[in-house]
């Protein structure tokens, strides 16, 4: 099955934010918005939910710290207790620095890998649906034409109102 998508290209941040807000008010199905940089307020304009990546970060950081402190305790106090400078077997304060580092390492790497995973990013991947110029100076909004709320005239007026520089239609296999 294929679907028809309408792509509107804009030149400024205010235009794309405006058109997105407007499209949402019109209940249009916004497939996606593309921008050369992170736009503040776009998530609100599109009605996106906040990411759950902080949870990944928190939990894996916790896991890293827990695992490390356990490992340090196990190696120095249980597996082979060795008297080092008369310090106690369980020198917990001395374990803190490495525990912290490992926590950061786990949290950081796991967050990034989770991000890659959920965003389906991987090395060598050819970009899907690459719109011309959106990594340079263009902003683009994708609307689904098959949507019930989609009205060509309205959309055209909308695009015009927000100074669309270019509009094109796309057919995508789903």
């Amino acid at each position, binding site marked *: 099955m294929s679907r028809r998508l309408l792509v509107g290209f804009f030149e400024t941040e205010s235009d794309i934010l405006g058109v997105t807000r407007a499209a949402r008010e019109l209940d249009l199905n916004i497939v996606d918005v593309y921008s050369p940089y992170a736009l503040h307020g776009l998530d609100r304009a599109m009605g996106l939910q906040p990411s759950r990546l902080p949870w990944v970060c928190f939990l894996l950081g916790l896991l890293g710290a827990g695992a490390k402190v356990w490992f340090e305790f196990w190696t120095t106090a249980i597996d082979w*207790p*060795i*008297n*080092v*400078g*008369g*310090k*106690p*077997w*369980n*020198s917990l304060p001395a374990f803190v620095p490495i525990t912290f580092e490992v926590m950061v390492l786990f949290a950081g790497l796991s967050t990034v890998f989770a991000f890659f995973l959920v965003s389906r990013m991987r090395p060598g991947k050819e970009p899907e649906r690459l719109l011309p110029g959106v990594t340079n100076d263009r902003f683009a909004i994708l609307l689904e034409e098959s949507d019930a709320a989609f009205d060509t005239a309205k959309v055209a007026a909308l695009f015009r109102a927000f100074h669309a520089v270019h509009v094109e239609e796309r057919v995508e296999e789903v």
Partner: protein
Amino acid sequence: MSLLNNTRKTESAPRPFALLTSADKTRYWKSLQEFADQEAFQAEAETEFAQTPLQIEADPSRRAFLKASGFTFAGAILTGCSQAPVHKAVPNLAQPEEMVPGRSLYYASTCNGCNASCGLLMKTRDGRPIKLEGNPLHPLSRGGLCAAGQASLLGLYDSHRLHHPLVRGMQATWEDADRAIGSQLETIRREGGPVRFWSTTVTSPAREAVIRRFLAQFKDGQLVEHDPLSSSAILDAHMLTHGARVLPGFHFEKAFVVASFDADFLGTWISPVQFSRAYMEARNPEMQKEAFSFHAQFESRLSLTGCKADSRTVVAPEQLRPWIAQLAALLSKKAGAVLPGPALPPPAHSMDALAEKLWTARGKSLVVCGLQDVHAQVLVNFINHTLGNYGTTLDLAHPSHQHRGSDAALQTLLEEIRSGKIAALFLHGVNPLAQMPRANELSVALKKLPLVVSFAERQDETAGAAHYVCPDHHPLESWSDAEPVSGAVSLSQPAIRPLAGTRPVVESLSTWSGLRVSAYEIVRRHWKEQVFPRQNAEPSFDVFWNKALHDGVAAVTARPAGARPFDSTPVAAALSQPVAGGGEFSLVLYPKVSMLDGRHAYNPWLHELPDPVSKAAWDNYACLSPAAAARLSLKEGDVVRVDAGADGSLDLPVLLQPGQHDNVVAVALGYGRKDSARFAEAGPRWLNWRKPVGENGLVGTNAAPLLRWQDRSLTYTRSAVRLTKTSRTHPLAITQSHHSLTVPKNLAPSSGSTRPIIQEAVLPAYLKDAAAGASHHEVPSQDLWPRDHANDGHRWAMAVDLNACTGCSACVVACQVENNIPVVGKDEMGRRREMHWIRIDRYYSGPPEDVSVAHQPMMCQQCEHAPCETVCPVLATVHSAEGLNQQIYNRCVGTRYCANNCPYKARRFNWFDYPHEDRLANLVLNPDVTVRSRGVMEKCTFCVQRIQEARIEAGNRGAPIADGVIQTACQQSCPTHAIVFGDIHDPGSRVSQLSRQGRAYRVLEEINVRPSVNYLRLVRNRPEKKSEGENHG
């Protein structure tokens, strides 16, 4: 003799390029099949490589190259897995019963490091001696052994030793040499020319008998004894005053007041190990209390003995005799007699006090003099006689045979040599061309003699001028005996089969006498005929012999010296001698504890040993007082010319020596020897490597040309030398650059400027309070953490008595031998990278003209809260259950963090791979201690190998380790027993007793690292408050 196991323990952790080196000598195996057919595999492996990458060279493309290298690498990995060298284990054909591979055996013997003839225990392992220790049964050395004695072991494994006789400098067989010498001697026997045997004092009665028998074949055969460090004047003075040329026995242990005029009896004078032990017996504050001896030293340079003195007076060398004369006058006045001879200037106040002390301690005092001046010695004899010391502290009934040399006889001999009258000259133990002034003249004269035979072990200066060199065995290879003090006889036995084609002197002499007898036969026969009859305790010679062989020593009746009662006639003449003087500087030649007379110039251990006073290694130098150097605007390391006019001059680097007379330049003897030419390339080679030798290609400069004949004595002092600064410099390897516990004035903090590293007390204060001299006493604070480490077994600890330590450095060499510590060479020493695990810190205090000196042996303190352990990332240094701070070399990655964090800086780092190429010298390595590789930290471990051995032995017997069974190497060698090691958990052990004493303190205990080494405070017999001129001249 075949050895079961590898004779050398090397540390063989992976090296970076080890994988890339080919194994051309050792065979490698990879799998069993391949191993079974090594040759085939070898061929296969070779073709595997030969056919691949090399043939691609025709195709120069980069791709091909990359491919080829990739393939090569993969192939290398494939073939490189699990390679291990094959090692052979070769057992004996027939196992001697007492020899178990891996077990050490100890044999008693006699030391040959100098003429003092201390008792030895030779530790042998698998048929080779690996360590010399003191023999506790020996009546003189009583278990001590000095640095030179310890180090003499290395001479055995010296690859530069002569391995065959030389006939006119050419290698020859013994048959050739014997034939040639024999025929010449035959001629002399017929024609009757004079034959002279020139030797150092022959301490071996058996050898002396052989020499005398040999000389008796000739019409005019004479034994001329001469000691390079001569005590001839003492003997000559006794000839004058007591009618016998005798060296009395000195009993420092019985002396409550000791006055020494330039006699370095704790360092190098006659028998330092014996004297140190005896001296310290009279100075143990716990045992002696009030009877603690008082020691006054009069000297022109700072000697080791001067460092220990309670009162030290700096006197120009020429003025020493007048000072003795004053003392003599004072004492004779007290005795109610008037000293014959001219009137003397009024005495110094300090002299008066000393005279009073000596007089009070009549019969329990001792005045000694190291001057080579018969008149001074006569006066000293007079003083000792007046004090009634003969018979108590001076023993003429058991005279010493350690120094018998006669300078007068030597002078006669030299005249004979110069006149060319001598038909045959034999040289043993002497090296006159290096030890005599005007050596060139002598060399020419020697060459003109018809027959000169040297018994030198190495091709030294004189051996080069001899017609025949018939190398003697190393003392550890041959049978001999000694009688250092009349009545105390000891045996020497071989510890190893001769390593080279050498022959004992006694065998050479017996061969030339017509009948070759083995040294063993000679010694045994001598003992049967001469020694055995002098004792009654044992009726059977075999039992006597076996016991003497086992113990190393035996007691027999002394031979009377034939001394007559004191005759005061020579005193008047001695008093009326004019006093030499003039010139701005006087030269004092002195021996160092390491190099002595230079006979050990081949020995890298001794060169590497820092002088305990100057802390300089690998050189001799012109010691000048800081004031004198300032006067001449000389800095340390500037080369100065010491000009003695017609007798020549020496160019030497300057060393600033506090405590020295401002008009004296002191230079050590024994340097600049041909034997030291081998060190031209010593030390690790790298970009900035500096030669360890001077411009002459030798270590140091030979000062012997400036020895001086006076009144038929070869004296070590000389007036009126001129010092001129040259434009050159010569860096010195000085291992301590800050000499005092007081920080520089401009950096002195408000909290005090002197550090309580060495604590000391004066005797009166100590008697009131045993803890006198303590700095602040801090109770070890609580830990921040729980005590997890149960320590209920042994806990090893050490106590070091600073009062007993003389700084003689025997421990340093003992540790070096025991622990396979490499020799790093002058350059590294100068860069402060010495490797000694135990070092002797030397601190001066007081003004430069009146310095007090303290020595402190410093080694790893085995801290309970070791700061080094916490910081090691790889657990290469951790604590043992018995309180040891372990260092695991093979785990060490070499971050040096531990060394940085050591408050005592007791850790040593292997900056380079130190040379171990000399396979012969490697035989000296202790197989119980790993040889460390480059990049590894090392340090003292309280001789953990000895602890382990003792533990295992005790375990095998099922008995606990008794106190005193484990002796660390440093402790074993210490002549004064300043170091005690043991289990501090055993309340009865010596070490815990000492650690509970009032004198005990721990260095830097305020930083709560809890060291396991307790130092015992130094006690000086000085009045509590120093008033001017009371004790210090």
